[in-house]
């Protein structure tokens, strides 16, 4: 029997609709509801309630059926998910399985997704760095993509606003390429990491090794306690969901906050098919949704729509939002929607050993993971054959070496009486990639998914400059390692596919000019002003930073703009 409430247009009308409940969608929900707007959050997956729906969170390793390992059958069925570092027995329930949600790889691309309330904010690596002026100026200075329509000064106050609520552990390092933020105490570098920091500080002007900045409550403030979150307990089991709320996720933070206002309606199991457009008013009127349980098609209406479906799904929804006025997708007169997709190049690692400072080891666990080396390449001027640069994760640890060679009591002794290794040094590269028109996504003309939504084609690849940046990473890091007295320096290509970095960006890029971009400086579609895109799809370039903090700051700023525009009657 039809639901009377659902049948009523009035009951399906809100002030704002937010598509997606990940990190950026959660922020849109919080900001809209706090500002008094009746807000509908649509999530295609199931609900995940903080703590209650973290089934593995308190399990000991021996309580996991396969001690964390994925089964052979699962690896065969879900090769894409299994290539993700975080896809393990304790977290697999938060990942999309390959065959549940197919897409078409015109070139090999690992699309990693979290279809549930909270999205990938449950699973993210929690590294949070601000962009700098150099990053926003990059495309204009170096002549690629298009000029960002905003600069650091536009977003800086919003970074601060978001950081205070999220809780970011970090040190005020005074590094121009990585502006300082509103920090909780940092997780200090360990002895070997600190030694590397000092070496680099002394020998290399403009290069820095800092404590990794991360969304963990190293010292919760009243605003975090009010969210129901307490101090991070250094479990480093974050991908299970944290019962302490020690790291930021939509589920632990923004969504319960939005719920408290009484203005939030959360609707899981709601796949957005398309955005509805009214050519008379030149505005979007709402969204068409498929209920994944009933397969019913429903329409919901609002004055303003935020698209936070995750980069590629945001592209998909806009491409699928066709009308008489926009036959090629909403706001897509220039044909650039779905193009200039970019990502981060994670294809390189370096390991080494260090025999100094053996009077120290580590105790407990570091949720920040160790150190971070901000990009120092081509910052104030072009110095290499390739454009832009790379950042690096950096860490050191001492391992307990267990002799597994013996049999019987020898083996037992070997296992139970480990020896402490020297310092093992590890690093991986996070390089900028250059957005290109040829890296793109589009809709299939015939094939549809279970909800009648066309399948997405993905054609995204590395280019030669990606290998030049990688070589530079190897060269520079090896030299710095040698300067620090590290030995046994080993570089290792990591042949991961694009997408495996889980930093896909672009396709609905921002810019000044409607002819060459889709979004204006406020994240509004140039051609449909009450539709905003503030997830990774809006990115004009990628820089080297982990992007989530920037999406959250963009979202808070854009909601502020949208609410002001609504008050002025402009939307």
């Amino acid at each position, binding site marked *: 029997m039809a639901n009377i409430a659902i049948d009523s247009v009035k009951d399906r009308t809100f002030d704002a609709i937010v598509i997606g409940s990940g990190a950026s969608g959660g922020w849109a929900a919080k900001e809209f509801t706090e500002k008094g707007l009746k807000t509908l959050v649509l999530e295609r997956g199931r609900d995940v309630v903080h703590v209650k729906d973290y089934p593995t969170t*308190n399990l*000991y*390793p*021996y*309580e996991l*059926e*396969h*001690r964390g*390992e*994925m*089964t*052979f*059958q699962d690896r065969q069925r879900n090769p894409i998910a299994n290539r993700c570092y975080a896809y393990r027995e304790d977290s697999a329930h938060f990942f999309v399985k390959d065959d549940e949600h197919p897409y078409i790889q015109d070139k090999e691309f690992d699309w990693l997704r979290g279809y549930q309330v909270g999205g990938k904010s449950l699973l993210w690596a929690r590294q949070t760095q601000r962009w700098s002026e150099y990053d926003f100026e990059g495309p204009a200075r170096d002549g690629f993509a298009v000029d960002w329509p905003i600069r650091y000064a536009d977003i800086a106050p919003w970074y601060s606003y978001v950081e205070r609520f999220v809780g970011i552990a970090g040190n005020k390092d005074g590094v121009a390429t990585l502006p300082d933020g509103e920090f909780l105490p940092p*997780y*200090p*570098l*360990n*002895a070997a*990491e*600190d030694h590397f920091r000092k070496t680099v500080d002394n020998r290399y002007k403009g290069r820095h090794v800092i404590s990794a900045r991360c969304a963990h409550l190293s010292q919760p403030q009243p605003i975090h306690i009010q969210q129901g979150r307490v101090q991070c*307990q*250094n*479990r480093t*089991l974050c991908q299970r969901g944290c019962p302490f709320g020690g790291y930021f996720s939509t589920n632990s933070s923004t969504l319960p906050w939005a719920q408290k206002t009484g203005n939030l309606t959360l609707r899981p199991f709601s796949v957005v098919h398309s955005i509805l457009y009214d050519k008379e008013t030149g505005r979007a009127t709402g969204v068409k949704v498929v209920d994944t349980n009933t397969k019913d098609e429903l329409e919901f209406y609002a004055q303003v729509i935020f698209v936070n479906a995750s980069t590629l799904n945001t592209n998909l929804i806009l491409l699928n939002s066709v009308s008489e006025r926009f036959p090629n997708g909403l706001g897509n007169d220039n044909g650039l929607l779905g193009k200039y997709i970019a990502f981060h190049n994670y294809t390189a690692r370096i390991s080494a050993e260090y025999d100094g400072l*053996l*009077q*120290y*080891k*580590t*105790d*407990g*666990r*570091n*949720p920040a993971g160790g150190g971070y080396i901000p990009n120092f390449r081509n910052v104030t001027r072009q110095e290499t054959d390739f454009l832009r640069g790379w950042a690096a994760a950096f860490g050191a640890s001492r391992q307990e070496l*267990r002799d*597994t060679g013996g*049999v*019987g*009591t020898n*083996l*037992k002794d070997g*296992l*139970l009486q480990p020896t*402490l290794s020297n310092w093992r040094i590890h690093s991986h590269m996070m390089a900028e990639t250059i957005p290109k028109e040829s890296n793109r996504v589009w809709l299939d003309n015939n094939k549809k998914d279970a909800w009648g939504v066309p399948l997405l084609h993905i054609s995204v690849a590395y280019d030669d400059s990606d290998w030049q940046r990688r070589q530079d990473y190897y060269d520079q890091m090896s030299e710095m390692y040698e300067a620090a007295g590290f030995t046994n320096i080993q570089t290792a290509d990591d042949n991961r596919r694009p997408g495996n970095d889980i930093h896909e960006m672009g396709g609905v890029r921002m810019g000044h000019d409607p002819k060459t971009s889709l979004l204006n400086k406020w994240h509004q579609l140039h051609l449909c002003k009450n539709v905003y895109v503030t997830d990774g799809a809006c990115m004009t370039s990628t820089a080297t930073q982990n992007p989530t903090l920037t999406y959250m700051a963009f979202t808070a700023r854009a909601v502020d703009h949208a609410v002001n525009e609504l008050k002025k009657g402009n939307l």
Partner: protein
Amino acid sequence: MNRRAAVRTLLYIAGGTMVLPACFRESRKASIALANLSISEADEGLLEELVETLVPATDNPGGKDLLLHFFVLKMVDDCHSPDDQQAFTKGLAAFRNWSQKELGKPFAEADLEQRTALLSKVADSGDDELTSFYGMVKRRTIQGYMNSQYVMTNLVKYELIPGRYNGYFPV
């Protein structure tokens, strides 16, 4: 530890796999439910002696007490490829024959010292079936041992909630 109770505990922990106590078993099948491996009661007994030889009971529990033979079977059954599984079953038979030949009696009837000495010779046997089987068993036995509740709560303590980090901890 009462074996039957222990089996139930293990399988409860392992996710509630169905199990029948030995006295109710009609065939001579293994006592845990396996989807892919075909393992007889005798195979299971041999594997039990094998894990006990690898990690013997001393003043603390060994492979038998910790039911590591079930763990090995569970992991090979669920996490290994069909090729591996075939190599495992073949290797188990090869091990039975080889140990009988080397010891002049069934593996289980040899004393711990003889069995330990025998396992030290597997690598030199030059028999691929044997070495790959033994490699699988040893790796999974070590994993099961180190990740057992006993070891993790008594010998190499696993902290679920460390609540601290010190990067300059004196050795």
